C-alpha cells in the first residue's frame, strides 16, 4: 500500500513539474471560489441497508490554469448535508433517522488537448484526475457506531469536450418592440467524464467500532476514530461535470456547473456507496490581470 501511495505522490509531482514544458504564451491563470447546493446520498452497509439522502451546501477554493494545449483545475472543497434515511412507510408509527454528512474534497484535474480529435469549434482533452475525500457521517441513532469516517483516494481517467459558443461580433436582438444590442462575448460549454482507474479506500474494521472506542483508555481523537481502519484497493468511481463558462472583457469569468459523482468503496468488509448531484456557481478571478 505504501508503494502505491508513493507512486501516486511521484506521479503527481511529475505532472506538476511538466507544467513549464507545456506552457505556452497564452496562459490564463484563475483563482476560483465556488458556492453550490447539492443533494447527497449514501449507504453504508456496515451500519444500515438504507440509503440516506438530503440537501446540502458546498464551498470550494481553487486554482485554474489554461493554455491552448492543456488545463489544470485544482479545488479544495467542503460540503455539509443533512440527510434522512429512506425508510419504508409505516402503517403503525413511522420511524425517522437523520444524520449529518460532512465531506472535504481535494480535486486535481490535468487534461491535455488532443489535436487530432479537436475541431475548429471544439476541443477534446484527455488526462487524469486525482480526487481524495475525507468523509464523516454522524448518526446519533447508531449510538456507539454513530460516527462513520473514511478516506477515499481515486486516480481517474478523464476526458473532456469543450464547445466554443462565443459570440464573435455584435448582434442586435429584436424581442417584439425591445431592441437589444448584444456585445461579443467569450463563452463555452464543456462536458467532462471521469472514470476511476485506481480506487482506494480507508474503511473501518470488521466490528466497525474502532479499537480506541472499545478500550476507552485512548482519549486521542485521531486514533480513537481511526484505529481499526485499513486501506483497500477496490470499488469504482465515476463522475461528470457539465459546465457553462462566460468570460468578462476584463478576463475574469463565471461558471455554472452541474456535477455528478458516484462511488462504491467495498473496503475489506462492507460497502460504502455515495452519490451526489451538485449545482455550483464559480467566480473566476484572472490572475493575469495583476
Amino acid at each position, binding site marked *: 500500500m505504501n508503494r502505491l501511495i508513493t507512486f501516486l505522490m511521484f506521479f503527481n509531482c511529475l505532472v506538476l513539474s511538466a507544467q513549464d514544458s507545456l506552457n505556452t504564451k497564452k496562459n490564463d491563470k484563475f483563482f476560483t471560489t465556488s458556492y453550490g447546493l447539492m443533494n447527497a446520498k449514501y*449507504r453504508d452497509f*456496515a*451500519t*444500515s*441497508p*438504507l*440509503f440516506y439522502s438530503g440537501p446540502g451546501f458546498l464551498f470550494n477554493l481553487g486554482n485554474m490554469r489554461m493554455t491552448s494545449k492543456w488545463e489544470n483545475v485544482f479545488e479544495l472543497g467542503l460540503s455539509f448535508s443533512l440527510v434522512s*434515511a*429512506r*425508510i*419504508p*412507510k*409505516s*402503517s*403503525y*408509527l*413511522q*420511524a*425517522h*433517522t437523520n444524520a449529518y454528512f460532512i465531506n472535504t474534497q481535494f480535486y486535481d484535474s490535468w487534461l491535455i488537448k488532443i489535436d487530432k480529435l479537436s475541431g475548429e469549434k*471544439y476541443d477534446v482533452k484527455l488526462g487524469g484526475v486525482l480526487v481524495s475525500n475525507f468523509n464523516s457521517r454522524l448518526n446519533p*441513532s*447508531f*449510538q*456507539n*457506531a*454513530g460516527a462513520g469516517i473514511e478516506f477515499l483516494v481515486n486516480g481517474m481517467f478523464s476526458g473532456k*469536450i469543450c*464547445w466554443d*459558443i462565443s459570440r464573435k461580433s455584435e448582434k442586435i436582438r429584436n424581442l417584439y418592440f425591445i431592441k437589444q444590442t448584444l456585445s461579443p462575448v467569450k463563452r463555452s*460549454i464543456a*462536458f467532462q*467524464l471521469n472514470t476511476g482507474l485506481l480506487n482506494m479506500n480507508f474503511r473501518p*474494521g*470488521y*466490528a*466497525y*467500532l474502532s*479499537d480506541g*472506542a*472499545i*478500550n*476507552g*483508555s485512548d*482519549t486521542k481523537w485521531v486514533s480513537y476514530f481511526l484505529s481499526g481502519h485499513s486501506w483497500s484497493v477496490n470499488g*469504482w468511481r*465515476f463522475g*461528470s461535470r*457539465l459546465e457553462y463558462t462566460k468570460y468578462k472583457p476584463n478576463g475574469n469569468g463565471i461558471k455554472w456547473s*452541474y456535477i*455528478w459523482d*458516484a462511488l*462504491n468503496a467495498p473496503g475489506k468488509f462492507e*460497502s460504502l*456507496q455515495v*452519490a451526489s*448531484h451538485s449545482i455550483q456557481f464559480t467566480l473566476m478571478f484572472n490572475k493575469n490581470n495583476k
Partner: protein
Amino acid sequence: MKFLIALFSVFFLVCSCEKALFKPDKSSSDPLTNFNYLWNEVDKKYSYFELKNIDWDQIKIKYQAKITQDMGEEKLFKVLADMLKELKDDHTNLMSPFDVSRYDVALKNDVNFRMRTIEEFYIPKAMYSGGISHDFLSDEKIGYIRYSSFMNGISDATLDFILKRYKNTKGLILDLRDNGGGNIQNVPLLLERFSSQKTLVGYFKTRNGKNRTDFSEKQSFYIGSYAGVRYEKPLMVLIDRGSFSATTMFSLATKSFPTIKLIGDTTGGGGGLPNGGQLPNGWTYRFSISQLIDLEGNSYAESGVSPNINASFDWSDLTKDEILDRAVLEILK
C-alpha cells in the same frame, strides 16, 4: 446545436446510470426480511455466544416459525425483541418509534440503593459539582461522592475541586450503585485520579470474523496516572446490580489497585461494548461486539464483577444505608 443536444443527452444518461450502478434499494417492511437481517447481523458480530452457551441457530428456528407475512409491526417487534432477550444482555436493544426492547438485569435482582436515604440522612447539605454530588461524613474523616451516571461529563476542574476538598480525609467513598454506565472514556478519566502509576487493568477482545469464535488479539486496557490532583488514600467503591456497562468496566479495573475496595452486590454486567445499526424497516438495534477480560484472562464481566466485601441494603429501616455504613467502617477500622 445538434452537438449541444448530444452533449446534454450524454450527460443526463451518465447521471441516470446511478441507479444501475448501485445495488437495489434494500429498504423493506417485510417481516421475514427484517427478521433475517437482524439474525444475520447478530450472528456476524455478537461476542458472547460461546461464553453464554447460546445456540443461535436453534433460536432462529424457534422464532422464525413465529414470523408471518401479514403480522403487524407490533407483533414483529415482539418476536424480534424476544429473540434478542435470549442473549440475556442489557447491551442488546431493539429500538422502534413505539418501543425499546430490554433485558432488565437489574429488575431480576435485589435493589440495594435508595438515594432518598442518602440525601436525607447522610448528606442533607451535599454540594452538587458538575454531575457529582458530594459531602463529608463521620466528622469530616470521610468524603462521600455520588456519581450517578458515566453519561455525566467529568471535567478536570470539577475533579480537582472535589479531591482538594477531601484531601485531609482518611478515605473516600465513591457511590456507583444504580449507575447504568455511559461514556466509557469517563472510566479512565475518573480512575486515573486514584492511580499512582500507569497500570494494566484488563484486556478487550472484539469479534473480527464470521465464525462465532473469531476474535481479535487481546487489546490492553490501561489506566494512566493523572499528573495533577490525585487521591491515593483508601477508596471504597459502592456497587450493586444496577451498576452496569461502564460501571462494570470501572469495577473490574479497580481490582488492580490495592487501595480500592468494592463493597455491595455484584455489578449488573455489560462487559462488552455495544455497536449500533439499522434494520431494513428503519428500526435501530445494538448488541455487544467485544469482551472485557481480567488480568488472569477470565471473561466474567458480562455477568458482573463481584465485590471484595458483600453487603446489602436492609429495606426494613430506611434511615440507614448498610452498604455505605460498611464502607465507613472499612475506612475507619
